[in-house]
């Protein structure tokens, strides 16, 4: 198969050729990309924004043991358990196998607590009963009103790292390519097959045509829109918005779940050096302008405080929201009871033979979603290679390690090079990290902005939320010649606007001096509130972590 990495430019349209076009740079799309590359297939991955711009960047990073679904959806629970076990084996660098607790506090249903081990048993999940004293010994911040506790094998996964590693590995295997800022405008269809996909570069406005033998729609919450553009009406989604908040420090060693049916504020998940408290579940009608609100933050905080009273005075630095794409069952379900399972649509009955959509599902089951999709697509291409992702370890790329909280400082101390200056002091991200991302992280072929560096590292994710590091990194990028016009300041403005969506609902206490200083820096010192330049497309569809 002939394919061109370098686009052919004719009539103002860039043309790319590939075997499989994958739409959607979340964990599913990148999982499909790696799955196919392991079968020797060349892929082109596109995203309207950047990697993990949707739910893949807006979740708590829990690698489910299945315990959360054991009571309501035994099948999903068992799927989570199996997939969790596989990922712990093949991608240990991306996972913190920290374990988890389910705890019930005064007011919770004792009956549910008693039935819980039975639910776990049915799904094959290890579940150890602990006395309240044992549980509080393991996690001293737990409430003294605790009356039941179980230990289960929950873990956490860095969703940014795993996405970046997927792309990085696919690039190595088959020269597959990721194009950020490429949104689907329309499909060219002839005789029951997609012959070309017209896209727009959302940064420059330029048009792109992609020629592919197979097209995979892994656009997550946007999968219904993409399918409809291809004339397929079989994908029906419910959008469920979830909001979480991030603390300044890690509150517990383990994942803490509320031992009751799923509800607001029922989980605290460690994420390296921080913790994430969530989650709400509210149905929304559209995907535009998804942002966390003060009211949602109050809801998770009130519930979370019942399990861990210390959350009342914990410093929170950020909130974020993601939209779960839930597959609509025949009977109108709400966000909590709708299936967490996934579906692969082959669209055969919609009259298309080279189009597939995979959506629904969870972070924990992304590999399985990619495997099923890979089997379908490879089969359609006449490729008989089996799926290898359940056994082939995920390698670790040099330019994609920077999303892990705590990695940058370890690297910096070990390297011990005083000329490698720290650009982001909160997360201790050194200049060399930024340089390696600019040079070789996925998407580096396209222009690397401050936002793109933010997705690929911890820059802007510490307690100052980018107040200082945005200025330092921008100066560094100007110095390196990455920017040579006003676009660097416009990019900083967009980056800070994006961060603010998540900062705004947790502004009180110690974050208030911080934001006052930020405003003084960004407006009074830098003049960013009065820039004349054109801003980028506003962020849509969620705020990332």
């Amino acid at each position, binding site marked *: 198969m002939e394919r061109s990495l370098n686009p052919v430019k004719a009539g103002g349209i860039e043309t790319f050729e590939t075997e499989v076009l994958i739409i959607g740079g979340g964990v599913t799309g990148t999982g499909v990309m790696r799955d196919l590359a392991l079968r020797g297939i060349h892929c082109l991955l596109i995203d309207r924004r950047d990697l993990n711009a949707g739910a893949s960047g807006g979740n708590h990073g829990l690698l489910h043991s299945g315990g959360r679904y054991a009571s309501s959806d035994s099948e999903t629970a068992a799927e989570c358990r199996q997939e969790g076990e596989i990922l712990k084996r093949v991608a240990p660098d991306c996972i913190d196998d920290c374990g988890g607790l389910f705890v019930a506090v005064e007011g919770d249903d004792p009956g549910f607590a008693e039935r819980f081990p039975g639910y776990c048993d049915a799904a094959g999940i290890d579940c150890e009963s602990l006395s309240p004293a044992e549980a509080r010994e393991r996690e001293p911040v737990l409430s003294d009103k605790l009356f039941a506790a179980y230990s289960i094998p929950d873990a956490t996964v860095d969703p940014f790292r795993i996405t970046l590693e997927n792309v990085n590995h696919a690039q190595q295997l088959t020269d597959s390519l990721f194009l950020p800022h490429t949104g689907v405008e329309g499909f060219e269809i002839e005789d029951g097959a997609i012959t070309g996909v017209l896209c727009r570069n959302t940064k420059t406005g330029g048009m792109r045509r992609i020629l592919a033998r197979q097209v995979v729609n892994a656009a997550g919450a946007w999968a219904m829109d993409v399918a409809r553009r291809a004339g397929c009406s079989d994908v029906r989604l419910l959008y469920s918005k979830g909001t979480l908040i991030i603390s300044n420090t890690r509150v517990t060693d383990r994942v803490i779940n509320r031992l009751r049916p799923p509800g607001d504020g029922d989980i605290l998940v460690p994420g390296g050096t921080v913790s994430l408290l969530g989650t709400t579940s509210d149905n929304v009608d559209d995907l535009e302008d998804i942002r966390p609100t*003060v009211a949602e933050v109050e809801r998770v905080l009130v519930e979370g405080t019942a399990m861990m009273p210390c959350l009342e005075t914990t410093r929170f630095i950020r909130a974020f929201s993601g939209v779960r794409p839930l597959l609509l069952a025949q009977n109108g379900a709400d966000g909590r009871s709708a299936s967490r399972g996934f579906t692969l649509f082959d669209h055969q009955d919609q009259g298309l033979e080279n189009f597939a959509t995979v959506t629904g599902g969870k972070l924990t089951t992304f590999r399985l979603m990619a495997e099923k999709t890979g089997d379908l697509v490879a089969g359609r291409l006449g490729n008989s290679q089996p799926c290898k992702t359940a056994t082939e370890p995920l390698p670790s790329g040099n330019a994609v390690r920077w999303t892990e909280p705590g990695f940058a400082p370890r690297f910096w101390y070990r390297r011990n090079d005083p000329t490698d200056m720290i*650009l982001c002091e909160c997360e201790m991200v050194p200049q060399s990290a930024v340089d390696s991302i600019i040079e070789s992280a996925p998407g580096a072929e396209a222009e690397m902005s401050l936002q793109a560096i933010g997705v690929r590292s911890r820059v802007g994710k510490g307690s100052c939320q980018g107040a*200082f590091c945005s200025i330092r990194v921008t100066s560094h990028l100007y110095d390196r010649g990455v920017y040579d016009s*006003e676009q660097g300041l416009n990019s900083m403005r967009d980056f800070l606007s994006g961060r603010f969506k998540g900062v*705004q609902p947790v502004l009180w206490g110690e974050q208030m001096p911080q934001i006052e200083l930020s*405003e003084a820096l*960004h*407006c009074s*010192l830098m003049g960013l509130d009065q820039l004349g330049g054109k801003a980028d497309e506003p962020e849509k569809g969620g705020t990332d972590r």
Partner: protein
Amino acid sequence: MSLKKGVPTADMGRDERHYSTELAVIGSGLAGFAASVFALSRGITCAQVGNTGAVAYTTGYFDLLGYCQDQWLDDPWRGLELLRESEPHHPLSRIDRKEIRAAFDQFTVALTEMGVGYTAPADRNHFALTPAGTVKPTLSVPETMLSGIEARKVNARTLVIDILGLQGFSAKEFVANMRSSWPQLSAAKLSFPDMESGGQVFPEVMARALEVSSNRERFAERIKAVLGDAQLVGMPAIMGVHHPDRVHAELQRLVGVPLFEIPTMPPAVPGIRLREMFEQAFPAKGLTLVPQQKVKRLELEAGRVMLYLRDSFGEMVIESKTAILATGRFLSGGLKAERVGVREALMGIPVIQPGSRADWYRQDYFDPLGHPVNRSGVEVDSRFRPLGPDGEPVSDRLFAAGILLAHQDWVRQRCGAGVAIASAYKAVEAAARLLQEQ
């Protein structure tokens, strides 16, 4: 530090030190310093306490009013008229323009006399340079920064240098963003003498180094080596902490062309200069300065205000006839933001604020209207006395000044120094009147 002079009473046998004074200024930001300057010039005995506030974060520029009714202000005095129409409760709308001008005049003259030269307030704003290569309207600027502002107006051939290892300041960035209004700009990078390793360097350290003549000479040689045909040279603000005007003049003489400073990100030298200058000059003028200590408690008694604080030597009490609260906003700790609302930190004085936390911020960080919570603060009467829950002054002898005052957004309106200096002037005037009456 033995800066505490004051008038200790006979009660020295105990650990507790006791001072009495006519005016106690609480807060060591720009408003606090301005209040002390005005009080000293009126011959009022004065004690100043409190953490150094946002002074370390200042650009060095003193804004009066830069933005009003959706526009940059070339003429801030005309801007004050616009402000009075649209925002009658704004602190600057409640002060006569002549008094504002007098306050700025008196303050900038005092600073210049104490060793940090500032331009006198004029009829028009300067469009001052920022490290990002943007400009901001401001009324009075350090003398070390003036020639760059003038050079931009005439598109003078100018070289901007940055320094190896100095973060957040890129000459290329400055040039790239300034190019459209100032085409004859170029950029170069230098290393600072004895700081050539490539590791991080800090403005304050370089500024202190440039107070030494041999360092100035070596640095000047490096500038000359890249000077080319430039008529002026701009650089980050590092020309000395003490006596910057002397360092500036010396460096210019050595390089042979006019030089100017551009502010840097904090902690920046222009603010450190002001703080150290006050810390040296005030005690010499008889002021009792207790820097870096927060007042723990303030009690209003008949005919006096009692301030309780403690430093590393133990308890301290300041008994004063009057007091000015200049404790700033959130960054300096004058206001505390809790999940349920904003409160005034020292005395619990009522705070004007939005109805609920959901109303504190607008959705867009850079919304030109600014955020409602930033207009929170204490309400004052015409004598700048903060008002209690009943709408009456909390006390006859307690005044408030600076960005603690409600109804202003100092960041977005570019009016921080204006509010600080003018309200300090009014508060001191009111305190002086009370002291006279008694």
